[in-house]
C-alpha cells in the first residue's frame, strides 16, 4: 500500500538532489559578503523550512486521526514528526557550523531565531518519550495526536513572534527571496524542492517498512507462529506495542494482506 510509487519518488529525489548540488557548487554565484561560506544557506534553510512544515503536517495528520480514529493517520503523523525531528537536528547542526564560520560562535543565545528553533526542537524531542510513557496504544495515539496539534499550532505562532522581534543577527529569508539574484533564487528553489522530495521519500520508506512489518506480524500470527495475544512490550511507535499490533494486524489481515 505505502510502497506504491516509491521507486519513482526515490528516482526523482536522487535527480533533484544531484541537480541541487550541481547548481549550488557550479551555477550559483559567490555571495559578495560571505563568499563561499554562503553555500551553507542552500542546505540549512531548506532543512529548516521542511522541518517546520513537517511539524505542521504532523499536526494536520493528527487532526485526521482524531476525526477518524483510524490508527493509520496516527502512524503517518508519528512518521512525519519523527522525520521532521531528524531534519530539525540537521538544521541545528548546519546552522551552528554556519554561525561559527560567519559569527565566530557556535551558538548565540541572544538571537531569537536560533533560540526559538531550539525551543521547537526540544518541544518535539518530548514527543517520543510522551508516547513511550503511555502503555495503552489507543490512549497513546490520542494523547500523541493532541500533543502534535498543540505543538503544531505553536510552530507558526513562534515563527510570527520571532519575525515581529526587531533585533536579530540571523538573516531573514522567507518573504525576502526577491533580494536574491536570479541564479541564487533558482538554486534555492531547486534545493528546497530536493529537500522536500528527500523528506517525502524517507517518510514513505519508513511507512512502508512499518506497514510491511505489521503485515508480517499478522501473517505470522495467522500461521500460528505467534500467539493471538502479543507479548507485552512497550513501544513509542504506533502499532508496535501490545494492542497496537493487534489493531493494525487485524486491519492488515482483514484488508490488504488477504488475496
Amino acid at each position: 500500500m505505502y510502497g506504491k510509487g516509491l521507486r519513482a519518488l526515490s528516482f526523482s529525489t536522487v535527480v533533484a538532489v544531484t541537480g541541487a548540488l550541481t547548481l549550488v557548487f557550479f551555477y550559483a554565484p559567490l555571495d559578495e559578503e560571505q563568499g563561499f561560506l554562503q553555500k551553507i544557506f542552500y542546505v540549512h534553510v531548506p532543512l529548516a523550512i521542511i522541518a517546520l512544515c513537517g511539524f505542521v503536517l504532523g499536526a494536520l495528520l493528527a487532526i485526521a486521526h482524531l476525526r477518524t480514529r483510524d490508527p493509520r493517520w496516527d502512524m503517518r503523523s508519528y512518521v512525519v514528526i519523527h522525520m521532521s525531528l531528524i531534519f530539525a537536528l540537521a538544521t541545528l547542526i548546519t546552522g551552528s557550523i554556519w554561525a561559527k564560520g560567519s559569527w565566530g560562535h557556535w551558538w548565540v543565545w541572544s538571537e531569537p531565531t536560533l533560540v526559538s528553533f531550539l525551543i521547537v526542537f526540544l518541544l518535539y524531542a518530548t514527543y517520543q518519550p510522551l508516547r513511550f510513557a503511555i502503555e495503552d496504544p489507543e490512549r497513546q495515539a490520542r494523547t500523541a495526536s493532541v500533543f502534535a496539534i498543540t505543538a503544531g499550532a505553536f510552530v507558526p505562532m513562534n515563527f510570527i513572534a520571532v519575525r515581529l522581534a526587531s533585533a536579530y543577527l540571523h538573516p531573514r529569508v522567507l518573504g525576502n527571496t526577491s533580494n536574491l539574484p536570479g541564479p541564487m533564487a533558482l538554486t534555492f528553489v531547486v534545493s528546497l524542492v530536493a529537500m522536500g522530495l528527500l523528506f517525502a521519500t524517507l517518510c514513505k520508506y519508513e511507512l512502508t517498512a512499518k506497514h510491511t512489518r505489521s503485515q508480517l506480524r499478522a501473517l505470522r500470527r495467522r500461521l500460528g507462529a505467534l500467539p493471538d495475544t502479543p507479548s507485552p512490550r512497550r513501544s513509542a511507535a504506533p502499532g508496535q506495542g501490545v494492542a497496537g499490533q493487534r489493531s493494525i494486524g487485524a486491519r492488515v489481515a482483514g484488508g490488504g494482506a488477504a488475496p
Partner: protein
Amino acid sequence: MFLLAETPALPLHTAGKYVAAAYVVVFAIVLIYVAIMAIRLGRIERDLGELLALDEDAAGRAEVQAHEALAPEAHEDPSRESAPA
C-alpha cells in the same frame, strides 16, 4: 544581514572547511538513516524466510496427513479382495 555585512568574507580555504562540514553532516545523517533502513529490511527478509519455512512445514505436514488418511483405505482394499466370499 547588516552585521554580517561588516564581517569580511572568509577565504576559500577557511570557508571550505565549514561548507564541507555542513554538507557532510547532512550526507551522514541520510547515510545513517539508509543504513538503519537496510538493517530493518534485513530483519524483514529474515522474518519472511521464517514464515516461508513455516508455510512449507505446514504444507508438508498436511501432505503427510493426507497420505495417512488415504493409506488405511489402500490397505483395506486388498484385504477385502483376499477375504473369502
